[in-house]
C-alpha cells in the first residue's frame, strides 16, 4: 500500500497551476455543463481548449498518433483534479468529445473514423465539439427504450426521431447518436446502433431548452429524414448497447477527479469566506455549527479523493472500474449537494442574490452551483440508477425494478 503520487504527477500539477494562474481570470470559476450557455463563457472555453491542446493536455491520455501523449492514468487524474480546482474551462470540448467519443472510437470505431475525427477533437478547434444524443422523451434512465430510427437505404441510413436534453447541441459540430436499427429485436437493447452525425446535415432542427434559471445547457434535437453515410456507423450494427456500456464506465470515471478538484476549491473559498465575514458581531468561522459543517464536508471530500485514487489504481491494474465509476458518480453528486447547501447557508441573505449581480459574494459560484447541482446529479445517470447498478453488480442483490 502506498498513498503518495509520483514525481511526474507533481511536475504536471505545478505546470497546470502556472498555466491556470496565467491564463484563467482569477474570478472565473468553471462549472461543468454550464460553459456552453453564455457566449462569453463559450469563447473563453474554446480559446482555452486550444491552449490546452497546444500544451499537450487536452487529450493527454490518447496515443500520440491521434494527437495525445499517452499520459498515465495518474497524470490524467491529476489533470482532472487541477482543472476542477482552477476552474479551467474548455477541458471537455462540450463534454462528449474528450471524455467518451474519443475513447469509444478507439475501443470500437474503425481506423478510418479514428483518423478522421480524433485529431480534430485533439486540436481543440470548434470542429472538434460534439454532443451526445441518447435521451428521448420516453427513454431517460430506461435508455434502451429509444425510438429514433435509422433505416438502411443503399450506402446510407435515413434517421427519423427526436432526442431531448441534448447538452451543447447548439454548439456542436457532430452528434454521437444512439438509434434503433432493429425495432423487432427480442430484447429492446439488442437493436441499438451508434452513428456519427454531422450537425450541419439537412433535416436536423435544434430547439433550445432553458433550465429553470434560464441557462441554456440542453436542447431538443429533431431528425427529419436525415441521411448519413453507412460509414458513419460506429462498431457493429445492433451492438450499440454493449459498446455503450463499455464507454459509460469511462464517462463516469472521468467526472470524479474534476469534481473533487472543484469541491476542494469550494471548501477553501468557504473557509476564507467564513474567516472574513462577520455575523452577529463575530467572525462566522467561530460559529461551531459552521466549523462542524465544513469539517464534515472535508471528510467526505477526502473520501471522494480516495475513491478516485482507487478507481484510477484499478485502471492501472487493467481492471475496468464498473462499480467504482458508479460509486464515484453517486458519491460525488451527494457531496456536491452537501457543499452547495452549506455554501448557501454561509452566504446568508446573499444566497438569494443573482449570481451575476453586484451584490453577489464569491463571484456567484455558490448560487450557480446550487442552481446547477440537481442537473449534474441527473445527467449521465441518476443516483437511483447508480445505486441499482451497485446493488445488483457489486452486492449481488436481485434486480429491484
Amino acid at each position, binding site marked *: 500500500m502506498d498513498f503518495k503520487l*509520483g514525481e511526474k504527477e507533481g511536475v504536471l500539477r505545478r505546470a497546470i497551476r502556472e498555466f491556470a494562474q496565467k491564463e484563467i481570470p482569477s474570478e472565473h470559476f468553471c462549472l461543468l455543463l454550464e460553459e456552453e450557455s453564455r457566449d462569453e463563457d463559450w469563447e473563453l472555453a474554446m480559446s482555452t481548449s486550444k491552449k490546452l491542446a497546444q500544451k499537450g493536455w487536452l487529450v493527454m491520455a490518447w496515443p500520440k498518433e491521434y494527437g495525445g501523449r499517452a499520459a498515465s492514468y495518474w497524470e490524467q487524474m491529476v489533470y482532472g483534479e487541477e482543472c476542477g480546482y482552477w476552474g479551467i474551462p474548455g477541458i471537455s470540448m462540450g463534454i462528449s468529445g474528450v471524455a467518451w467519443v474519443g475513447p469509444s472510437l478507439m475501443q470500437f470505431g474503425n481506423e478510418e473514423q479514428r483518423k478522421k475525427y480524433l485529431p480534430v477533437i485533439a486540436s481543440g478547434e470548434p470542429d472538434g465539439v460534439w454532443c451526445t444524443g441518447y435521451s428521448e422523451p420516453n427513454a431517460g434512465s430506461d435508455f434502451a427504450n429509444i425510438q429514433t430510427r435509422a433505416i438502411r437505404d443503399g450506402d446510407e441510413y435515413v434517421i427519423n426521431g427526436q432526442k431531448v436534453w441534448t447538452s451543447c447541441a447548439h454548439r456542436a459540430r457532430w452528434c454521437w447518436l444512439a438509434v434503433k436499427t432493429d425495432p423487432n429485436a427480442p430484447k429492446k437493447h439488442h437493436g441499438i446502433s451508434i452513428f456519427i452525425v454531422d450537425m450541419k446535415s439537412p433535416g436536423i432542427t435544434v430547439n433550445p431548452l432553458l433550465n429553470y434559471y434560464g441557462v441554456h445547457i440542453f436542447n431538443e434535437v429533431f431528425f427529419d429524414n436525415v441521411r448519413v453515410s453507412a460509414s458513419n456507423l460506429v462498431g457493429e450494427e445492433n451492438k450499440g448497447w454493449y459498446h455503450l456500456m463499455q464507454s459509460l464506465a469511462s464517462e463516469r470515471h472521468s467526472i470524479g477527479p474534476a469534481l473533487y478538484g472543484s469541491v476542494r476549491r469550494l471548501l477553501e473559498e468557504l473557509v476564507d469566506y467564513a474567516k472574513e465575514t462577520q455575523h452577529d458581531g463575530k467572525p462566522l468561522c467561530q460559529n461551531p455549527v459552521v466549523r462542524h459543517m465544513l469539517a464534515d464536508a472535508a471528510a467526505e471530500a477526502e473520501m471522494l479523493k480516495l475513491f478516485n485514487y482507487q478507481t484510477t489504481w484499478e485502471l492501472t491494474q487493467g481492471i475496468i472500474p464498473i462499480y467504482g465509476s458508479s460509486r464515484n458518480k453517486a458519491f460525488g453528486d451527494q457531496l456536491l449537494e452537501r457543499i452547495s447547501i452549506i455554501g448557501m447557508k454561509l452566504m446568508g441573505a446573499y444566497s438569494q442574490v443573482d449570481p451575476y449581480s453586484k451584490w453577489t459574494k464569491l463571484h456567484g459560484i455558490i448560487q450557480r452551483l446550487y442552481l446547477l447541482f440537481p442537473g449534474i446529479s441527473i445527467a449521465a445517470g441518476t443516483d437511483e440508477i447508480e445505486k441499482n447498478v451497485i446493488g445488483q453488480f457489486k452486492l449481488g*442483490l436481485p434486480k429491484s425494478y
Partner: protein
Amino acid sequence: MDFKLSEDQEMLRSLARDFLTKECPKAKVRELEADEKGYDPQMWERMAGLGWLGLVFPENYGGTGATFLDLVLLMEEIGRNILPGPFFSTATCALPILEYGDEELKAKFLPQIAKGAAIWTLALIETLGGYEASEIRTSARIGDGQYVIEGTKLFVPNANIASHLLIAAQTGEGDKGITMFIVDAHSLGVEVEVIPTIAEDKQCQVTFTKVKVPEGNVLGNVGGGWDIVEFILDRAAILKCAEVCGGCQAVVEMTNAYAKDRVQFDKPIGSFQAIQHRLVDMFVNVEGLQYLVYQAAWEISVGSPSKLHISLVKAKASEVYQQACLDAIRIHGATGFTKEHDVGLYFRRVKASEFAMGDTDLWRERVAVELGL
C-alpha cells in the same frame, strides 16, 4: 500510489481472521461480556505466541518489527470479529513507550508486553470527560525522590486486569504541566471499580490515593506529558477507527447476506429498493472509511503523519458505524432486535468506540482547525 496489500499483510490478515473466527466465536464474545475479567488469558497467551502483542516492536524487544499499518490491519480484523480484552489498551501504552521511553524502560517493559506477561492501560480522562490538558486534575507531587499521585480517572479500559497503568497527571500549570507516569497497578492506594457499560467492555474508574511512584517511572520528560498524550491520541484514534471499520464491514456483510436470504412478499427483501439502496449507502460509506483509515495509517507508518487526515477519520468513523448498525438492525426486522443476533453486539459498541480517544465533535473541531478555521 498502490491500493494492494503486500503478501505479508495479506497473510497477517487471513491468519488473524482464521484465528479469531476459531478462537473467539460470538458465543465466546458473549461469555466474556459476562465474565468478570473480560478476557481469556489462554487466548491472550496464544496471541502473544502469534507475535501480535509485540507486532510493531523491533526484534530486540521481542517484537516482529512490523509497521503501524500492519497493526491497523490486525485491529481491523479484531473489530470485524469483536475481540473483548486488553489488546487495544495495551497497544495504546506500548506505542508511547516505544517512542518516548529510554533504553532502560523499553528493555524493561516491551519484552514483557510482547510475551503476554503484562497488560497495560491508559488512564487519561477524568470526571469532566474531555481530552484537554486543562481537564486533568489528578496531581503528582514530588518529595523524597518519588511522586505521590492523587486523583480519579474514568473510563479506563481493562484496568480491572491491568498490571500497569500509564497515567497523565498534573505536575505544574497548563499544557506544560502534564507528566506521564508508569504505575504498577497493584500499588498501594490504587483502587479499581468496573463501570457498567452497554458494551459490557470493562471500562473502569480508577482512584489514586497517595499512590507512590518512583521518579524513574516518568515517561518522557517532566512537563512533557501532553505531547505524549497527543502522540497517543493520533495513533490510538486510528487504531480505534480500524476496529470500527472492521466492525462496519461485518455488519454490512451479515446484512447483505440476510437481505438475500429473507423472503417476504415472495421475494428476497434485498430486491426491494428501499432495502437495496440503504445497503449500497452502507457499503460505500464503509469502503470510504476504510480508505481514510489506510491513508492515515500509511502516513504514520512512513513517518509523515497528517493531522488533517487523522482527524478526518476519527470525525467520520463513529457516524458511519452508528448509521450502518441502525440500518442493519432495521433491515433485519425484529430478529435484529434480539439478544441472540450478532448485529446488536456491534451496535452496543458504537458509543464505546466513539468516546475512546475523543468523540466525533472533538475531532471535527480538530479538522476545522486544520482547514484553517
